[in-house]
């Protein structure tokens, strides 16, 4: 038998902590997905970088 029986309020607190944990995990996944999408679209390239790589005079 547990020395400290789980109170209903402890269960509620656990549910809250689990919820916050899942929200934080989802936020990390969203930021990662957004970064991948932006890198693929070329949002983080310097202006003129693409034309320079194609032999242009950019920069």
């Amino acid at each position: 038998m547990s020395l400290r029986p789980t109170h209903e309020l402890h269960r509620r607190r656990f549910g809250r902590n689990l919820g916050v944990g899942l929200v934080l995990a989802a936020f990390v996944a969203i930021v990662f997905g957004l970064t991948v999408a932006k890198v693929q679209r070329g949002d983080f390239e310097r202006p003129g970088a693409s034309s320079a790589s194609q032999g242009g005079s950019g920069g």
Partner: protein
Amino acid sequence: MTDASINASTPRETEAGFGDYFALLKPRVMSLVVFTALVGLLAAPAPVHPIVGFCAILFIAVGGGASGALNMWWDADIDQVMKRTRGRPIPAGRVDRGEALHLGLALSGLSVIMLALATNIFAGAFLAFTIFFYVVIYTMWLKRSTPQNIVIGGAAGAFPPVIGWIAATGSMSVEPWLMFALTFLWTPPHFWALALFMRSDYDDAGVPMLTVTHGRRATRTHILVYTVLLAVFSLGAAFSGIGGPVYLTVSAVLNLLFLRGAWRIRGRDEAASEADNFKIERGFFKLSLLYLFLHFGAILAEAVLKSYGLGGW
């Protein structure tokens, strides 16, 4: 073990669950924000990467939720008085006012920064302005001081499609403002119809609703006037870049029904309304929910049809 440590480990009776904090964000209002912002984003003439679009809608929704939490923080005293709001987390004693304030401020900052990073700074700045408008201009200043509170508050609820449009295009044009006008002019008749059959709530809370300050006859007239203005703008939108035959058909039918309802409300006296427990007013309120949903649904349908080479004029 000391008494202090026992107390520290004992949870307080009002320990809130995760759902209580979520309820602070006004999920039902958030669903309207999500839907109208999504329509604004998809109706815009600029393709959006699906993940960027998802993030834009998510952070607009979080910004809307943050406004809701800040609204509940400020309005905790009147929420306790009104039947409709008595069960909210703060008046029910499950969440402290301070917690709602901190959650609202944190989510406001997060949503604005993330929207600006995900889309563009203009969209982030407009979301910040919307939160400021709803919390400071409407909730703190005008809600308790003018019977036009609903009209002004409606503007805050009408901004999401504009933010969605800006998130997609990075600029402004007439079309998002037509969507703004749709929600802005829809809000007064929607809420005044509610005030007609929920009168004791607003009276008890001392909120200067039009029904209290100008009387119920004037409120009925105001509902009709705003419904006529709404019909002009919503039908006018049919001939803009977001309109088309589908939108025009949906809008024409809904406006006829809505005008008929407003006309009948205008023609009724209090005795007749009380005799049938505000049947016409309740019906008008329910129709108003359908009215807004189907109008934005029709704009979305036109946008989808356009992507297949159909839709529009």
